[in-house]
């Protein structure tokens, strides 16, 4: 057969006209293209196959001492029953009578031999002569599989040559075998599919090239003259429209059974090798120890984060409270800036941005630790463990993924619920994801835990995350039984990835990406909210003391202060009915990143001299909570933190929710979050009072 132009690059072909055509066929990622490069060297080019948009590499190869052949590297394919244009091309080339190659080099991956043998069985059905190039033998060996090439050759009835395409090992042997096969071509004996199928195939074979393949295709489509034979293959009573699918399944079963027999003959398994990874997984994903270990690991992360970051946070805060504030004050004084500008910069921006930036070291350390856990493969185990917990309470199996994403930010987590196909499942997840504690809430926990819980700060922060998981699971359980009783269990099989050593570059990149995103988002929000809060704090509320004017009004009598004071009594049963607290929660509704800044801003506006002293925010907060709680400070602070965890995360989340589940459900979700937050905060405070 003459070699057609396989490529259309510059209208030239790399192989001599009239040379035999040899094609490389194999699954994707078996080393086929590397082998092609090793065989052809620089004598190759790549272009679309004529009439197709499929890119194919072709070149000249001189196997052994024989004449040159045209070698074509066909796209990786899993099956000759095509799923894509790439696979369609391979099928056409092997089956179409006027374009069939002289020889197929089937590149089989020894470490994934079953699916490779399945393709080999299909190639055999086309009747084209075959030589097998066996790759990845070393990978198979590392997995405890010894593949015997001679035994494989005996089982297949074709030559099998082990090759290492990257080093070129075995390539010379392959060349010699290919040269011999071209001289004396022998077809690849098609595997027996069992008496019934083989008989059926024989009865409908049309004859000519690829006769067996065409017969099987006719039976698998159960169409035309082959339909009667196909109906005879399936169970009596099989519906007409299921005959084709059933025959196709019978053929696939027969091919896998044949592959199994070949494996039994040619592959020796060195026992059930138990790797250290298997041993680790037995403990880390154990039904009894998996969850406690996960919680212990996360406690370690938060404990290490808060203790390592504390001195760094103080240093950044001192920098802003001292040199930065003093320097800006001097500059504003030197340019005779108006008083309102001084108030905005000193009491607003410096306080807010300083507080925010003081959390950068903490965030960086936490992101590093989480990146290490992720890159090592532990987070996949954690997800496996949490998934089991989710199933216990009846939530969909895949729900844990958006939840884990939600610990960073709720907004992508809401978008991530789209991995759930069932709209009711997505709705349920959209309602509970706001209870996942995002990184913006972490800043408030750390601020309050550092002030009120001292050495136990890390444990308290960890406790908030445990409470967050409990809230997600608990609310999911309640909603499932009240509003989502129709949701059925979705079976799921999870496959764990192997462990690996975390890469420094990946860890650094992930940390930087997350830190940059946090700072970028937070800085925009901080500047905007600080400005708005400053503006509203500068405007006198109706009924303010006489003489109040813009920029000259007592903070609690400003527009912002009066609204905050009006809201504050709602929190009296929770022990924090102070306007500073309610002011922080109001801006927290817009964005949690703004809570710390607003807290600093409201105290700063009230007592600028005091709060600009390093660490002065702590005593101010302590005084407030002592006053509002009747001395039950810890209970009130805990209640505040719980409310902050459970109520609406931010306006961006609300917008994302509206996009996912519509206005009605979003509003219902906000009402639910506020209700749950208030009830929990009151319960925490009242129980705390009773216990103290």
């Amino acid at each position, binding site marked *: 057969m003459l070699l057609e132009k396989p490529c259309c690059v510059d209208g030239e072909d790399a192989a001599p006209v009239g040379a035999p055509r040899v094609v490389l066929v194999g699954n994707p990622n078996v080393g086929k293209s590397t082998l092609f490069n090793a065989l052809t060297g620089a004598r190759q080019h790549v272009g679309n196959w004529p009439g197709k948009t499929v890119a194919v590499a072709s070149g000249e190869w001189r196997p052994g001492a024989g004449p040159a052949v045209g070698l074509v590297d066909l796209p990786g394919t899993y099956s000759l029953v095509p799923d894509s244009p790439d696979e369609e091309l391979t099928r056409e080339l092997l089956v179409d009578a006027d374009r069939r190659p002289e020889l197929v080099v089937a590149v089989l991956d020894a470490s994934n031999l079953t699916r490779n043998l399945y393709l080999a069985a299909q190639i055999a059905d086309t009747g084209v002569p075959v030589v097998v190039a066996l790759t990845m033998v070393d990978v198979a060996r590392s997995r405890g599989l010894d593949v015997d090439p001679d035994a494989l050759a005996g089982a297949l009835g074709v030559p099998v040559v082990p090759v290492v395409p990257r080093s070129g090992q075995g390539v010379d042997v392959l060349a010699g075998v290919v040269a011999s096969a071209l001289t004396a071509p022998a077809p690849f004996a098609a595997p027996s599919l069992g008496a019934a199928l083989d008989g059926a195939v024989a009865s409908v074979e049309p004859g000519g090239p690829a006769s067996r393949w065409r017969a099987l295709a006719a039976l698998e489509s159960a169409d035309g003259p082959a339909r009667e034979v196909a109906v005879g293959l399936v169970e009596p009573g099989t519906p007409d429209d299921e005959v084709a699918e059933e025959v196709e399944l019978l053929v696939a079963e027969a091919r896998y059974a044949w592959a199994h027999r070949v494996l039994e003959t040619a592959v020796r398994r060195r026992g059930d090798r138990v790797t250290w990874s298997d041993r680790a997984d037995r403990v880390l994903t154990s039904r009894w120890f998996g969850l406690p270990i996960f919680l212990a690991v996360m406690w370690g992360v938060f404990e290490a984060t808060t203790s390592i970051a504390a001195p760094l946070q103080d240093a950044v805060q001192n920098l802003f409270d001292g040199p930065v504030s003093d320097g800006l004050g001097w500059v504003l004084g030197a340019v005779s800036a108006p008083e309102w500008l001084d108030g905005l910069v000193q009491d607003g921006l410096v306080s807010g941005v300083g507080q925010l930036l003081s959390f950068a070291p903490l965030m960086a350390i936490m992101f590093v630790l989480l990146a290490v856990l992720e890159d090592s493969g532990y987070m*996949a185990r954690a997800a496996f463990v949490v998934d089991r917990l989710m199933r216990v309470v009846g939530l969909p*199996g895949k729900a844990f993924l958006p939840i884990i994403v939600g610990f960073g930010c709720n907004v992508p987590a809401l978008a991530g619920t789209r991995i759930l196909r069932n709209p009711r499942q997505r709705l349920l997840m959209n309602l509970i994801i706001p209870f996942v504690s995002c990184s913006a809430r972490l800043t408030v926990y750390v601020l309050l835990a550092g002030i009120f819980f001292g050495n136990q700060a890390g444990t308290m922060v960890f406790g908030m995350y445990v409470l967050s998981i409990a809230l997600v699971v608990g609310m999911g359980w309640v909603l499932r039984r009240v509003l989502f009783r129709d949701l059925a269990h979705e079976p799921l099989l999870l496959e764990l990835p192997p462990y690996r050593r975390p890469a420094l570059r990946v860890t650094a990149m992930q940390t930087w990406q997350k830190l*940059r995103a946090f700072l970028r988002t937070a800085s925009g929000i901080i500047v905007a909210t600080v400005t708005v809060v400053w503006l509203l704090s500068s405007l006198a509320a109706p009924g303010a003391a006489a003489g109040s004017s813009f920029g000259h009004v007592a903070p609690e009598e400003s527009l912002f202060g009066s609204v905050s004071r009006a809201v504050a009594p709602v929190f009296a049963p929770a022990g924090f009915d102070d306007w500073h607290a309610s002011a922080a929660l109001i801006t927290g509704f817009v964005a949690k990143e703004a809570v710390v800044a607003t807290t600093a801003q409201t105290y700063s506006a009230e007592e600028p001299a005091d709060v600009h002293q390093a660490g002065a925010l702590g005593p101010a907060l302590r005084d407030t909570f002592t006053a509002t709680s009747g001395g039950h400070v810890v209970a009130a602070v805990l209640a505040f933190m719980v409310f902050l965890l459970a109520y609406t995360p931010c306006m961006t989340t609300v917008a994302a929710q509206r996009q996912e589940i519509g206005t009605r459900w979003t509003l219902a979700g906000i009402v639910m979050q506020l209700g749950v937050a208030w009830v929990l905060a009151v319960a925490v405070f009242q129980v705390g009072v009773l216990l103290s």
Partner: protein
Amino acid sequence: MSALRQVLDEVRSGRARGLDDLARRVGVSRDEASAMVDHWVRKGRLDVTDLSAACSSGGCGSCPSGDHGSPGCGTTGPVLLAISVRQP
């Protein structure tokens, strides 16, 4: 029942905990079980999804270091594979 049908049946039942467990239940090697799962994925009966918490939820395309749909960091984190029954 053939091994191929058993694989589908086991995934549908949700009994198997991973590929190794699936292979044990069906009585085939892990390699065979994996190939059979892929067979059902091609036939549109099963779904295999990468479940990654490490990378951007929108995939490489939405990651600031993504490079034409590939990981710009040079690698992707180890991820869970979720195999589930494809819904009609």
